[in-house]
């Protein structure tokens, strides 16, 4: 996973990048699918959270393959470094069961779940393949971080500011609801 972070820079011409990128994507996709299935079937909540880390890291690696380094590092920093850590933190600090709990995996609903998942897979997969199947990636050489920050502080200035108010409001509300009084 880390190797590809640096491999992503290794090859300038866009053609010679396609094959390794596809191989990396294949491996990463398989890992993600396996881990995602484990997230929902695992009966130990901490293990489920750890499998979720694998899925999220896989997303990060996909960003790397697409040469969105900034996005990838943000994915690692925010999702893995903060959100899942807080999940685990919450599990450890509260009275939530920390070991195996069999009601985490609802075996009775499994056929229904599998049915829904397969249907969604067919519909989404079919739609995406037929719409974007012929699209080829263009590996750009621009510094995506600069482009991203320019967009955030220009075209998306208002949503950016609004997000900060949103976080403030979420913070206040969460504190009020969670505090003991």
């Amino acid at each position: 996973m880390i190797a590809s972070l640096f491999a992503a820079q290794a090859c300038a011409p866009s053609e010679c990048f396609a094959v390794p990128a596809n191989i990396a994507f294949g491996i990463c996709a398989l890992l993600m699918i396996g881990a995602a299935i484990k997230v929902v079937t695992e009966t130990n909540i901490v293990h489920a959270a750890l499998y979720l880390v694998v899925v999220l890291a896989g997303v990060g690696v996909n960003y790397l393959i697409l040469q969105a380094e900034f996005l990838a590092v943000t994915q690692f920093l925010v999702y893995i470094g903060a959100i899942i850590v807080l999940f685990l933190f919450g599990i450890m600090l509260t009275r939530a069961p920390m070991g195996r709990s069999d009601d985490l995996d609802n075996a009775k609903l499994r056929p229904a779940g599998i049915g829904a998942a397969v249907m969604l897979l067919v519909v989404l997969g079919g739609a995406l393949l037929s719409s974007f199947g012929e699209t080829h990636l263009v590996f750009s050489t621009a510094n995506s971080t600069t482009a991203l920050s320019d967009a955030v502080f220009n075209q998306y200035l208002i949503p950016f500011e609004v997000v900060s108010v949103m976080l403030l409001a979420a913070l206040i509300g969460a504190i009020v609801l969670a505090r003991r009084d």
Partner: protein
Amino acid sequence: MFAIDPLLESVDGSAVLIVLLKVVVAFAALMIAVMAMVWFERKVVARMQNRLGPNVAGPFGILQTLADGVKLFFKEDLLPREADRPVFRLAPYLSLVPAFLVFVVVPLGGDFSNDRHGVVSWFGKETLVQVADPHIGILFVLAMSSMAVYGVMLAGWSSGSKYPLLGSVRAAAQMISYEAALGLSLLAVLLNSGSLSTNEIVSGQSGWNWNLWATGVVPFIVFFIAATAELNRPPFDLVEAEQELVGGFHTEYSSLRFALFFLAEFMNTITMSAVIVTLFLGGPNGPSFGPGWLQAILPTVWFLAKLLVFLFVFVWLRGTLPRLRYDQLMDLGWKLLIPLALGWFLLLAAFKIGQDEGWNRAVVGVVGTVVILLGALLISMAVGTARARRAAVEVEA
């Protein structure tokens, strides 16, 4: 520019070899440095406490670490009955790997003066004296330091025992809290350098133009304190407060797995010092003189010298300061360091804008200071309110 490292502009066999060489050398150097650091720490602390320290294995006891390593290697590997086996086995590696990875973005040498960006020529190829230089270099450091929480947290949880769990919860809370201060003080550096790449940050500090004073010392102090806390080193080593928690999150670990945690801890100390040197003290920048061969190795020498200063300071802190109480730790982080780093960042940003717009520096300074003092007043009022409420609740109870 696609690849910042000129080596990667055209890739051939020898380039691959050079990259491999760099990886191997960096790895080996870090391992040797860790060994030396363990010895150094024990020796210096011993001196501070009027003891001799290790003095049996090898000259000045320098082989002591090796001897300890061999001992740990041959000890029985215990797995507690209540442990969550896969996670228990995984945790040490989660600690170790991020510690290693941070090192790859640190520039270890190369001439940064006169816009040369640290490019050196090895075997007829131009390259950088660092394993990799991604655009987002410094964010990578932050990401890895946030990964490091996992090792500590999962080690404590998977041990299936209460002291390690308490230790790991403490550690996680501490590391998360101080990561905010770390990031905010880092922002000042980024504002000054205008880049996330470690190479660019070092280039921007050539010719004594170090970020240490370019950002006005405060971010450096905040960063250093936060880094100490992030490393769980004294005086912030509540994670392994022996009196309260036996040994902290790694109480149940023994043998090689314990050695891995131990290794990770010292490795983190070294890499964090290296990051501080890179960010604030100009990395390998320094006066250059003498014949060609000396000029080639001088930057690395400067880098190591600066590194040594910080390693000594970390040991010094350990030898001098008593451990903080937990509430003091949290107060320091949330109520002092974070607001301070944020306020300073805003002040620097105001100066930066003032420079672009041609405002009077003095006016910007005065207005900025007044705003920050107002903010400080509000924060202290808020803290006072909270304290008064808590006191009122306690009186009622």
